[in-house]
């Protein structure tokens, strides 16, 4: 996994609430057996209109919005556990998602793919979305070490599990960690089976 430390960039705003993983990557694109190439179909059915033309109202299709940060409405990533959603977002080039709420499984999937989900208060997300819509070149500075998000509307801190933070900043993953605990796990298994 790639290390994550700091990032300062512009952002793409998708103000919709309850964005489910079926929208992020529709089921018909889940047939691949590797992790690459999902970015192409990210938000496929919102990016294209029924007639096959690009939906120019959708922020990902508006050239004024650029950047590695996705800012989205409340309850992002709900629904299906498909990790393909996190792969698609990462593959598209995003490094950070800011929302006022993330669904549990999605949050874990994002972190396991070096994608940082940042939860901020609802009031802040609303102001941030409005700010980006008004000034698309707004910069957002994220510092994982200090756990801060800074923009023109102020600087706030966010929470992240200490272990997950370590994994992200060092580029470790859970498999390495679990394998290092093999003896403990095997001892546990033995007492279970008695």
């Amino acid at each position: 996994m790639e290390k994550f430390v700091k990032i300062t960039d512009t952002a793409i705003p998708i103000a919709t609430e309850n964005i489910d993983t079926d929208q992020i990557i529709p089921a018909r694109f889940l047939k691949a057996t590797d992790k690459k190439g999902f970015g192409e179909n990210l938000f496929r059915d919102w990016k294209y209109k029924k007639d096959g033309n690009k939906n120019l109202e959708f922020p990902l299709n508006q050239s004024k919005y650029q950047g590695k940060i996705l800012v989205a409405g409340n309850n992002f990533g709900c629904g299906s556990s498909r990790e393909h959603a996190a792969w698609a977002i990462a593959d598209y080039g995003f490094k950070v998602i800011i929302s006022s709420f993330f669904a549990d499984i999605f949050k874990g999937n994002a972190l396991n793919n070096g994608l940082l989900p940042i939860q901020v208060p609802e009031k802040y997300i609303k102001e941030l979305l409005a700010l980006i819509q008004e000034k698309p070149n707004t910069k957002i500075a994220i510092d994982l070490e200090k756990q801060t998000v800074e923009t023109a509307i102020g600087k706030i801190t966010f929470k992240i599990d200490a272990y997950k933070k370590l994994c992200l900043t060092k580029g470790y993953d859970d498999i390495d960690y679990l394998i290092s605990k093999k003896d403990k796990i095997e001892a546990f298994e033995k007492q279970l089976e008695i």
Partner: protein
Amino acid sequence: MKKTLFDKVWDAHVVDVIKNGPQILYIDKHLIHEVTSPQAFNELEQRNIPIARPDKIVATADHNTPTQNQHLPIKDIQSRKQLEQLTKNCKNNNITLYELGHKYNGIIHVIAPELGITQPGMTMVCGDSHTSTHGAFGAIAFGIGTSQVAQVFASQCVLIQKPKKLRVNVNGKLKKGVLPKDVILYIIAKLGTNSGTGYFCEYAGNVFEEMTMEGRMTVCNMSIEMGARGGMIAPDQTTFDYIKGKKFASKGISFEQKVTYWKTLKTDQDAIFDQEYSLDAAEIEPMLTYGTNPGMGIKISEKIPNQKDTSFKKALEYMQFKPGESLINKTINYVFLGSCTNSRIEDFRVAANYIKGKQKAKNVNAWLVPGSQQVAKQIQTEGLQQIFEAAGFQLRQPGCSACLAMNDDKIPEGEYCVSTSNRNFEGRQGQGARTILASPLMAAAAAIAGKIVDITQQN
């Protein structure tokens, strides 16, 4: 300290706790399927890590399988490859697979309980959010992403923060025509789609105690639709009777010993939950969704509400419904009876019982998709198939089918489908398809009438 049912099962599976971090939770059963496992197998192969406990894994093909002519080669090349990959991965790693056509094949959350794989007190995971279904047996069961599937392959454990505890109590007498599906749709509509996020939910009260195992599975299945990682119901005699004699259930004395342990799996009196709700069973009516998330549900007697926010408007726009409207008498051209929420034998009995002696409406395409080969067989044995056929319905072969429309079972654009599945997201049942979630009884009634009917007004 007083413990909840969830604490009891969880605490018995904690291998280790990372300071300021997650816990290492041991997993008793790992269920896998073709869509979310291939990348995990690849990961292990690339890193040269063996699968720790292949004997604790069970695989099936369900998400991407056709529901007609299963004996023929699959036409879609990518789908066929995905299934072949699963077969190869299972074979190379000594994993039990109930592949397409096997007498135990079916939707993972239908087959594990019916084979007795699911048991009280277990920890279970699957790369599928509806793993919560198995909580109906008093197991801790939850969905995981593919990275975690790889973790479980490598270590038989997951790293996870212990969720908070939530209890939803429903007591009282259910009205006629109100099924377990209505109970859970009501809970979600009432509490909201993210009310459960961060929590594991226990369902308690006489309403759940009186339910069959099938009903309890329907309820726990949709825990994820209120954001909860999983749902559980304390095991009782109904649970033990269901498991007894199933293929993988212990036999004789060892079964009795298990039952003695299982009986201890109850929330202690005075145990504390982080959040608790109590709802009145008498308030519940047959439910329908009108929007594009499962929390957008109303009682059959209610009208679509009005809200100002843009997400709400976007949902109604997609569904082509208006605030203030009733759903009764809306024409629908599709009905889907299936999915891991409602494709068990009891669901088909309910539908057959209603359909018997009636005729399917001409405008309706109805897909009846059993959850497993065993359910399909039972439909035949019990004579339900004849009832369906006489009424003009055709049964399909088992699989996830139009629940996620990964195979050919797609609802055409713009059409309304009354569906017994669990998600009404935009495009979930096919691009542009409009899903109305409901119980098998409401779905059967809609299939006969060709429109939504108020079953409480019928005899």
